[in-house]
């Protein structure tokens, strides 16, 4: 096994993409050095290793950087073969990758829109519901039917990608006072999420909900102050966008 100093992660404590990598490393039993980044003021190391996107997470293996969380997860899986997080069948791998793409491309932006939109909130909530319906159907009747996790009996790539981010659903439900994951409407998804969040490695990775609530409330206050209480979508500024991006769909990573 590599010495701890050869694995390093530049991340941000409230960033779901960082959590994905932390969780994967934990599941693989890999020790690593963690460096907390201020996303508004990236460190020289971050700028050096991710000059194109300048964002977390950045994974360093013997000083060689890997960026983009889904790319990082696959790199980790392919480098350390024990406790695989990808299925072995090519078709199942393609399916896992497809739904990861869906999570980043459709679900995450919709969830973000719930948080950041003013008048458009109802439309954003509907979008989230439409996307959850697709996942619910896949869990209930489709490729993942009858499985405990998307990865099978154990957590896999898609669980990590969807799970690290889905905790924001509960946070936004409270802060924005909307219903996103109604157990009656999305029973299978709801059950999967609860099961996922109960896993030891997940509990060790994801920050406590009150910290996330405090964080989200803080950003919300800032947004409302900026918009002077008018209910329009807050114009993007480096601070809020950075913070929201970190909170929601990830710093691109």
């Amino acid at each position, binding site marked *: 096994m590599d010495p701890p100093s050869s694995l390093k992660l530049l991340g941000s404590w409230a960033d779901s993409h960082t959590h994905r990598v932390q969780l994967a490393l934990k599941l693989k039993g890999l020790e690593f050095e963690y460096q907390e980044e201020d996303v508004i003021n990236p460190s020289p190391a971050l700028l050096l290793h991710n000059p194109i996107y300048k964002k977390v997470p950045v994974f360093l*293996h013997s000083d060689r950087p890997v960026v983009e969380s889904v790319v990082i997860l696959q790199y980790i899986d*392919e480098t350390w073969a024990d406790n695989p997080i990808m299925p072995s069948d090519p078709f199942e*791998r393609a399916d896992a990758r497809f739904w990861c793409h869906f999570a980043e491309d459709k679900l995450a932006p919709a969830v973000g829109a719930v948080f950041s939109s003013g008048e458009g909130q109802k439309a954003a909530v509907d979008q989230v519901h439409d996307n959850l319906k697709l996942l619910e159907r896949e869990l209930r009747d489709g490729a993942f039917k009858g499985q405990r996790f998307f990865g099978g009996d154990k957590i896999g790539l898609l669980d990590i990608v969807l799970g690290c981010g889905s905790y924001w659903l509960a946070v936004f439900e409270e802060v924005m006072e909307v219903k996103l994951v109604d157990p009656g409407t999305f029973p299978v998804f709801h059950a999967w999420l609860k099961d996922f969040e109960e896993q030891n490695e997940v509990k060790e990775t994801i920050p406590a909900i009150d910290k996330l609530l405090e964080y989200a409330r803080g950003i919300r206050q800032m947004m409302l102050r900026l918009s002077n209480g008018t209910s329009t979508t807050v114009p993007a500024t480096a601070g809020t966008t950075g913070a929201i991006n970190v909170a929601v769909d990830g710093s691109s990573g």
Partner: protein
Amino acid sequence: MAAAAGEVRLIGGWPSPFVLRARVALNLKGVEYEFLQEKFGEKSELLLRSNPVYKKVPVLLHHDKPVCESMIIVEYVDAAWAKSGQAILPADPYERALHRFWAVYIDDKWFPSMFGIAKAQTEEAKAESVEQAWAALKLLEEAFEKLSKGKAFFGGGTIGYVDIALGAYLGWAKVIEQMAGLKLFDEEKTPLLAVWAERFCAHEAVKEVMPETEKLMEFAKMLRGK
């Protein structure tokens, strides 16, 4: 390696760069497949059933099981026909990570800037998109130097993952070059990529399926006329 008739089908449209990616991958592996050309302006029942989430081409059907998203299809083809032809993704995990990263970058940064040139309503907007496209290509030129290790393609001696990701856009890049009156793959700005572009288009696995520039121009004019 020939597949049994009906075993491999690809739903697509001839002008789509994303469909082209799938076709190049299948050709590289010598896979025989049935090409199901979608009618322009309509979506077939089969497409809607096979890709209910996005309702878009390409969709690969292997033993009737659908695979969607162009680069996911490329990686699937590489794995499913691992014993045929050359590997599309390299064997080394770090190199694989680099190829995957650049493919994300190409779709994320290069494609929107290229497309932005075509969509631009004002000269300023067009000029900005052109600058962004050239800046992206400069980065890709450096990536090419690093990944090709002096050989012909991003994949080294053979067409690889990044070659397919970027090369698929070459038909449309030529159309935009003509329409905008400029060179994107400029021998002076990005000499390695300028040569690579010609080489890619001339490759066995590509030349039969890369749409002709004149046909794409006509298609583009038709779209604008709509």
